[in-house]
């Protein structure tokens, strides 16, 4: 048995169903041996997207996404995908081929020091030096990626190690023993009791949920706790969908691109439970406002996040699902905060964003997203790309029982199509839609071929305005409309692109009956491309 067979056997033991990747000589022994298994392979069209597909897959399956590429440029192309997963704590195992062990360091063909290059974007990385280490390393890699604060792990495997004879009998380690890695899962009971006491005494409590809640699978517990104590909930971008958008206790997304009433609610609270959120700059512009005159409880599985951007009154380290189960157990009576909820509902009415009356050739984006949301199935997976389309999606897509995915931390353009494809492969029964601008579409449209090759039927909606809209908006305000590097002249004819890849195509402009068009577009389960004409001068904030 050679190294490549050992890798494949380990992946089978980890119950890996599908691997996203690209070929190259340095990873070829691995792709050869995988032919002997039932593990599916998806050949993407550029390596970055292999990581994004793995990310979408991981987020919907709840497991670890796996991707594999070759050495040198294959590995470096993967970096943006890995960094995107790292920023949003998505569990990935990335396998890269490497040149022969004895050539490492001599700058041979397609050699890159990938473990060095990704160091600041991975939870951990391995360069395999001995074929005998493979079972332990792969076991550890999956364990590290999927426990504690999730994240990507990279395994760099030289060509000669993949071909080396593995002596002795193969056995996959049953358990893990790492003296240097023991994540805290259970919350400290003294702290938990303290928090419950604070909740009982609070007049204006609020919960702010982040992406950590999805990663922990704690949605049910959070909803139950909020409902039991009638505590309002706001979310960061990554926390969208923890509460159904139209839940009476949900008050929208916070941050500089969020709802003003959500920020006000958080700032005016007397008790803030920050749950699985990093308190980064886009979500919390002024950290002093969320600690001033209030008790702030910060709950996170990563102790380093607590106190990094704000100093909480009560730190609480552990897995969110575990902690909220303990909360529910400790919480003796239901609280009533109807006065506070009345105040917040007042803010919601008073501060709701304006909608301009719209006539003409263009589609009003807020109206469009609202109607799109109404047409989608209750459990649809909605993947927003990056830019204006993302902000409109955050504000106007109503999550019911589905999921909302986007690249929150890194803001990687071109994430939505590959991530939506990965999500579809994780759950074929779900309706999956990627909403994207014409800039990011052109960064990722090569994957339409992958969709066709593997029959991955997702719906893509391109909000086309001929501009990199979010930055154009910034230049509108910051540089008084002196535009630089934001105009997308030369956009392709999307109807021809759709035809070229054998996809259904539909165009929607201001003169259409949008709801009717959307119903028609989503009537079947085929892949489809919808072009929506948006005013180039449209703004998210006005």
């Amino acid at each position, binding site marked *: 048995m050679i190294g490549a067979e050992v890798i494949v056997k380990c992946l089978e033991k980890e119950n890996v169903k599908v691997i996203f990747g690209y070929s190259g000589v340095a990873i070829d022994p691995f792709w050869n041996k995988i032919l002997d298994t039932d593990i599916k392979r998806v050949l993407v069209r550029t390596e970055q997207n292999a990581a994004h597909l793995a990310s979408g897959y991981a987020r919907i399956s709840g497991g670890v996404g796996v991707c594999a590429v070759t050495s040198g440029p294959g590995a470096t192309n993967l970096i943006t995908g890995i960094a995107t997963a790292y920023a949003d704590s998505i569990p990935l195992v990335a396998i890269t081929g490497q040149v022969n062990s004895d050539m490492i360091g001599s700058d041979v063909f397609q050699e890159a020091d990938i*473990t*060095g290059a990704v*160091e*600041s974007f991975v*939870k*951990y990385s391995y*360069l395999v030096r001995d074929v005998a280490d493979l079972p332990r390393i792969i076991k550890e890699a999956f364990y*590290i990626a999927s426990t504690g604060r999730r994240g990507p792990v990279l395994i760099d495997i030289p060509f000669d190690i993949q071909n080396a004879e593995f002596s002795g009998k193969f056995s996959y380690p049953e358990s893990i023993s*790492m*003296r*240097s*890695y023991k994540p805290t899962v259970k919350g400290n009971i003294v702290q938990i009791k303290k928090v419950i006491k604070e909740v009982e005494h609070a007049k204006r409590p609020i919960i702010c949920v982040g992406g950590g809640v999805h990663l922990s699978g704690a949605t049910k517990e959070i909803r139950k706790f909020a409902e039991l104590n009638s505590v309002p909930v706001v979310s960061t971008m990554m926390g969208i969908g923890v509460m159904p958008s139209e839940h009476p206790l949900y008050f929208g997304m916070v941050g500089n691109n969020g709802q003003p009433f959500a920020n006000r609610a958080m700032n005016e609270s007397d008790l803030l439970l920050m749950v699985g959120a990093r308190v980064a700059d886009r979500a919390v512009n002024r950290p002093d406002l969320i600690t001033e005159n209030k008790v702030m409880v910060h709950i996170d599985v*990563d*102790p*380093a996040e607590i*106190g*990094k951007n704000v*100093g909480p009154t009560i730190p609480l380290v552990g897995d969110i699902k575990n902690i909220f189960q303990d909360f529910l157990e400790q919480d003796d009576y239901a609280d009533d905060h109807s006065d506070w909820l009345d105040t917040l509902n007042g803010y919601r009415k008073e501060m709701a964003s304006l909608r301009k009356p719209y006539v003409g050739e263009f589609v009003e984006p807020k109206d469009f997203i609202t109607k799109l949301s109404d047409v989608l199935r209750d459990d649809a997976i909605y993947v927003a790309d990056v830019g204006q389309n993302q902000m409109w999606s955050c504000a106007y897509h109503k999550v019911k029982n589905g999921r909302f995915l986007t690249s929150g931390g890194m803001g990687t353009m071109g994430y939505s199509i590959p991530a939506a494809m990965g999500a579809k492969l994780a759950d074929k029964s779900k309706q999956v839609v990627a909403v994207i601008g014409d800039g990011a579409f052109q960064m990722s449209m090569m994957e339409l071929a992958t969709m066709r090759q593997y029959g991955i039927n997702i719906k893509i909606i391109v909000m086309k305005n001929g501009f990199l809209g979010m930055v154009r908006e910034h230049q509108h305000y910051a540089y008084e409309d002196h535009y630089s590097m934001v105009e997308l002249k030369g956009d392709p004819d999307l109807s021809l692109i759709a035809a070229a890849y054998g996809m259904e195509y539909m165009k929607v402009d201001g003169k259409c009956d949008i709801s009717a068009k959307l119903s028609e577009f989503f009537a079947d389960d085929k892949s489809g491309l919808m072009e929506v004409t948006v005013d180039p001068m449209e703004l998210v904030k006005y």
Partner: protein
Amino acid sequence: MRRIYSVLVENRAGVLSKVAGLFARRNFNIDSLVVGETADKSVSAMTIVSSGDERTIEQIEKQLNKKIDVIKVKTFKESMSINRELMLIKVKYNKENRRDIMENCEIMQAQIVDMSKNMMMIQICDTSERIELFIEMLKSVSIVEIARTGTVALTKCREQ
């Protein structure tokens, strides 16, 4: 605020670069960093001297703990530990200042470890402050070269 971090890490290739890279990426200072083996060959001990405000000091400890190869982090103020640094210093001497230099060495408990007819090499093992003081004392003679190890530290026995 100056802080000393005594960090036990897995003795593996690349660990030093991971730890040093962490300081660079997170914009933390490194005043000095020393690595060596411990009694257990699979474990290395790093002594890192750093400085920053309270939040930075706490973050350094947490971020170090987050590294998978880090087994244990202890952090303490300089007053809580015994701190030593080794310096080798090469100076030029002549008939006039030779006695002075030797006297200074005696006062500071430094040793002359190598000599030629116009140069001598002195070794001193002491706290960083006293090493600075010694360099100051030798300013009047011509210093040719200096090599310093950076601080190693262990917490005092009663702090154990």
